[in-house]
């Protein structure tokens, strides 16, 4: 039995990050549908607060997880969606920042900013807007 458990543990997929959706103190709490609309450019303000979502670069593990778990899309779908939207003149995708540290700094310093980080990187300056 112990050998079976050890094998089970060894064969388990690597632990994935625990994502939290974070925002500036001015941003109200979100539900998933609203978050999806924000990251697809359909919602630009909430309760009078102008929103500025930010993303991590394509194929970043956190971004991949965010797209899959919160937006329910894969990278191809998401990039394809914004390629069309951009070339029909209806806006541009969220700004991309290099790292989770950049996201944290941006969210702390910009009213209306929204981003996502690993739960382990959370700091008291940011507000958790949504967590699955």
């Amino acid at each position: 039995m112990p050998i079976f458990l050890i094998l089970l543990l060894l064969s388990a997929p690597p632990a994935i990050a625990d994502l939290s959706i974070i925002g500036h103190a001015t941003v109200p709490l979100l539900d998933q549908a609203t978050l999806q609309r924000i990251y697809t450019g359909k919602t630009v303000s909430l309760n009078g607060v102008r929103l500025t979502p930010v993303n991590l670069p394509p194929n970043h593990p956190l971004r991949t997880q965010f797209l899959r778990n919160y937006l329910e899309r894969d990278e191809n779908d998401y990039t394809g969606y914004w390629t069309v939207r951009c070339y029909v003149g209806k806006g541009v995708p969220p700004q991309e920042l290099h790292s989770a540290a950049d996201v944290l700094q941006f969210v702390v310093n910009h009213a209306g900013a929204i981003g996502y980080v690993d739960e382990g990187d959370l700091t008291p300056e940011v507000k958790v807007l949504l967590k699955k």
Partner: protein
Amino acid sequence: MTAYIQYQALSLSLLTLVLCASLPVSADVKLSGFGTLGGAISDQDFIYQRFIDDRGTAYRDSVIGAQVDVTHPDGWGFTLQTKAAASSHNDTDWEAVLNWAFLSWRPANDWLLRAGRLRLPLMLHSANSDVGVTFPFVRLPTELYSLLPSVDVNGLSVTKTWLGDTTEWMLEGYIGKTHADWRYYLRDGLEPLFQNGTLFLAYDFKMIGTILSRVSERNTWRVGIHYTTATWDAGPTPIRFPFVPLMPGSSLGYYKINPALPGPPIRYAKDYDVYLFTLGTEIRLPQHWQLTIEYGRRHFPEAVVGADTHAGYLALSKQIGSWTPYCYWAGIRSDNQGLNLAKTMNRNQLPASVPNAALINISQRAGADLINPYEQQSLAFGTAYHLSRTSSFKLEWLHTRTGALSSFVNAPFGEDSGGRQINVFSLSYNHTF
């Protein structure tokens, strides 16, 4: 005119630079670009769709462009898009033009205002027609995507959106004007008015219209109504050509195409009124199948012209991994009145015993070409291979059959554009960055 557009492009580019330089730090500047390198060859020695014949061409589908989007967190934005492609003023040059240069404002989630040089969403893919990676076809069906010589206008657009749980409704209204050339091909010259060959007549277009769209996860529907006045640079436009019988009551005679010919006067109008009705849908079916249907009606209520058309296409595609094979049927047909007039005029030949018969006969054929008739159907089979969401290869076989006459064909001297069968093979590489 080209110089004027280049001057405008330069001015707007300078304005963009000034705007970018004076922007607050919080503004986001995004530079993107797109390009298609496309080759097409047919099995015919005459030209089809402006460039394609059995010698092959890269002019028909190749395009390169760049776009700058400046967005400010307050909801203001500025978009500039330029492209270089085959000229829309002649069939020989390559030229750079400004597609978009507009200011946008998103005061709230459900409102979008844009002012400046805009591209109208006339059909489902009109706004992104230069960006090949955004649709699977090698080229959008020319039968439908040639309703107007240009869909880029200087004007104002307002969009109101209603967001439901699963459905999004959008109502867009616009008003604007533009200057563009309408292309004709004359097998025979109409001296001294026009020489034979390709002819580009410049028009001022004033446009107003509205488009209603419904978008959901499974499908997209769009309906549009548009009104345009087209004013010819050279003066009033002919709307009716009188038939001049050689003897009273006789069917032997000619259509008066040239004002110098004897007979009652040609009827002119200050401009053409053009009504456009567009309808389109994309339906996502199970197993990654997609059905696309679009229809466009171009109606000239005053004039009897071949450009008064019904056009549409039906496409079926399926995504299989990185491949998107597709097939479509497309067709265009002039309204009966215009097509019948063009056909009658085209075959109206006076016997040589009539004085000036040769000259009159040439004028009849030139008149048929000037009426711009369309009757053709196309069947295409092709596939896109997606290297990624931003680059793809495409391959297509297109088979076109013309009916009585088709202005997409440059008919050889002394022959007709009707009754033709054309096979076109195309290959393209499409990329965005």
